[in-house]
């Protein structure tokens, strides 16, 4: 009996099945029609047809953020592939594992400016972890296997695989062989932290009088939140999370001192500024955290644990670098603490917590609700109550994103899904759809703004097709609020192109797409109508909430200042 031969298109599908893919997100076109034909003839995974390829990438991304699996995208050559670029960059900035299969014109046409030819590998080069130009039918399975391995190991990230049409068509067949246990001589990411560095780190931590644990998205990606919690409790240390790390330590944990950075809490930023040792775990000293790097925590010893050596000492010099997977390193640190029979310095801790509690008492993350316009923060609080803090909250980008981060304390990692690194408006809805697909029985909220929602609103149609009843909560301030806030604060209140005079009737729009629309513009009906919205389980509900357009996000770091130089309220410095 001779070994069966397969077309490249069949190999793509077989490889994806072999890698246990459940969903792929995509949009067809000339160069990938053979793959679509092969997808049609299999039942191992489902293809979700989006309405715009950018949304496919965000959907795959959201799916990945919620499940930890690799998100998979399929797009045709040329415009299909270039439409993926924003989504690839979004995933890259937040280290999300993703594989994008992009069609390409036939090998013989490459370089001729053929119809729908773009060099997607070239276009995406600065925003991928790696990419492959696939050129032979028999290479397809192992290239896809490698793409998955690279995407999810080490510091995760997106991988692009370019597939020319001529290696997919029925005329060219080859034997199928896939090696899912990938080994590469040029790529062996570190796993364990160096024992010497672990010892040094533990020495610094145990000697500290004012320790802060600053943890980021790495904790979420590495599923290390239980270990983080254990460390925080062992040390009884204060812990702050970055925007990407929210939920890494529960937002209601007594040692949680809030998010840090630009719109972080006063206590988090003050604790950083006054710390003698900062233990950074899977965080990367982003400029939205540090404020002016020259003024950043000059007196602190910095212990920096990260899987990516380039993140260490890139912006802020690390005194004790530890390269490794943060879950493994956390375990090593905990073991070392046990071994050295660590017991906390009670007096120092007490004093440190006393200081922190004084900053906490300022209650910097707070707002005033009068009985006229609905405050956006009030909406987030209502959302939190109604969903008992258990919803997946997928955000777009703007003021609403910060309000959600500040007022919805996330109990668990992966509950909070937002584009932190790239800040991509239009991310929220498709990301929420990816999450809903993975967790159909959970509340999945897309919190968004009147600007952001319109950047991928066409996906309302996909939601109907695949029955994805997410709850869209639009904090409608009739403006590009975050832009307007900066114009108010920095540009003399000149609202250049930051408000929109032609916002559609979102209720009618939702209805036109076959969904339920609810408008809320009175404070006294907020709770009841929102509750009603969340009670509708089998249909998508678009809740359009008219909020106070003048509200600014506070607290806010003062530009060029130190990490704890902050505006607490309008005109009030910390």
């Amino acid at each position, binding site marked *: 009996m001779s070994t069966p031969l397969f077309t490249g298109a069949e190999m793509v599908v077989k490889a994806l099945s072999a890698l246990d893919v459940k969903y792929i997100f995509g949009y067809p076109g000339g160069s990938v029609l053979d793959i679509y034909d092969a997808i049609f003839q299999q039942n191992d995974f489902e293809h979700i047809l989006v309405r715009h390829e950018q949304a496919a990438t965000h959907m795959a991304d959201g799916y990945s953020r919620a499940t930890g699996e690799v998100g998979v995208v399929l797009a045709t050559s040329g415009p299909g592939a270039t439409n993926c670029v924003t989504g690839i960059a979004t995933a890259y900035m937040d280290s999300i594992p993703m594989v994008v299969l992009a069609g390409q014109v036939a090998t013989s046409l490459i370089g001729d400016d053929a119809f729908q030819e773009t060099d997607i590998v070239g276009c995406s*080069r*600065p925003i991928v972890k*790696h990419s492959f130009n696939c050129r032979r039918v028999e290479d397809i399975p192992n290239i896809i296997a490698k793409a998955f391995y690279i995407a999810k190991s080490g510091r995760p990230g997106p991988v692009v695989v370019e597939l020319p049409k001529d290696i997919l068509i029925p005329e060219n067949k080859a034997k199928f062989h896939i090696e899912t246990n990938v080994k*590469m*001589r*040029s*790529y062996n990411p570190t796993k364990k932290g160096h024992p010497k560095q672990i010892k040094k780190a533990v020495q610094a931590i145990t000697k500290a009088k004012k320790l802060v644990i600053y943890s980021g998205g790495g904790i979420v990606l590495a599923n290390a939140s239980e270990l983080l919690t254990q460390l925080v409790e062992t040390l009884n240390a204060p812990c702050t999370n970055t925007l990407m790390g929210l939920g890494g330590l529960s937002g209601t944990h007594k040692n949680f001192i809030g998010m840090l950075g630009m719109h972080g809490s006063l206590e988090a930023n003050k604790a950083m500024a006054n710390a003698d040792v900062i233990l950074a775990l899977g965080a990367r000293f982003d400029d939205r955290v540090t404020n002016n790097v020259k003024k950043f925590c000059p007196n602190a010893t910095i212990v920096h644990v990260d899987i990516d*050596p*380039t993140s260490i*000492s890139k912006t802020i010099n690390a005194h004790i670098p530890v390269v490794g997977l943060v879950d493994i390193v956390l375990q090593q640190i905990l073991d070392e603490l046990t071994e050295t029979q660590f017991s906390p310095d009670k007096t120092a801790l007490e004093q440190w917590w006393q200081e922190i509690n004084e900053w906490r008492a300022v209650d910097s993350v707070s707002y005033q609700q009068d009985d006229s316009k609905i405050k956006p923060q009030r909406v987030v609080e209502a959302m939190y109550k109604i969903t008992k803090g258990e919803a997946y909250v997928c955000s777009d980008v703007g003021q609403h994103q910060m309000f959600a981060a500040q007022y919805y304390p996330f109990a668990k990692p992966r509950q909070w899904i937002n584009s932190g690194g790239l800040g991509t408006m239009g991310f929220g809805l498709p990301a929420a759809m990816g999450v809903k697909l993975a967790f159909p029985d959970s509340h999945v909220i897309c919190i968004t703004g009147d600007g952001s929602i319109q950047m991928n609103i066409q996906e309302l149609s996909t939601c109907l097709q695949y029955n994805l009843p997410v709850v869209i909560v639009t904090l409608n301030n009739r403006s590009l609020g975050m832009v307007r806030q900066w114009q108010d604060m920095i540009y003399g209140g000149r609202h250049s192109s930051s408000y929109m005079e032609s916002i559609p009737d979102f209720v009618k729009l939702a209805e036109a797409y076959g969904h339920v629309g609810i408008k809320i513009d009175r404070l006294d009906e907020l709770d009841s109508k929102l509750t009603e919205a969340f009670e509708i389980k089998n249909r998508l509900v678009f809740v359009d909430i008219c909020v106070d357009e003048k509200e600014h996000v506070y607290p806010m770091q003062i530009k060029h200042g130190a990490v704890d130089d902050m505006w607490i309220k309008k005109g009030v410095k910390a």
Partner: protein
Amino acid sequence: MRRILAILLENEPGSLSRIVGLFSQRAFNIESLTVAPTEDESLSRITIATKGDDKVLEQIVKQVNKLIDVIKITDLTERSHVERELLLIKVLAMNDKSRTEVKRITDIFRGSIIDIGKQVYTIQLTGDADKLNAFLKTLAHETEIIESVRSGCVGIARGEKALRV
């Protein structure tokens, strides 16, 4: 400070563009770059001459290492090493006087004249960047340079130390 980095990487389509892209994307300086396959055809070796302080260099090395198809990178300038560059240069040699002068300078620098035209000499010279610069300067003094090309530097560590898989 000037540094010479030697990189060993998979000889695959796109691997050079990733290196070049990285340098421009992160605003790292490239003074020269040379690339060719090694004796093992599956590997390429790149030599990059660059400039930067310790902090920048640390980032360059880490960022290059992070590229999936890079196997190893080393900073040759960290220890004793040999550095060579090839110069091919065409100069005017119109009359006896200038021909003798050009020949004399070439000999002093241990270069060789590899081609002669009616009015030009073509000279080959190898050495480190300093030597090549000095040669160019001296020649320019004596005659007119018509064309020149430099290979960019390559380098190798002295002694037992080797860059290999």
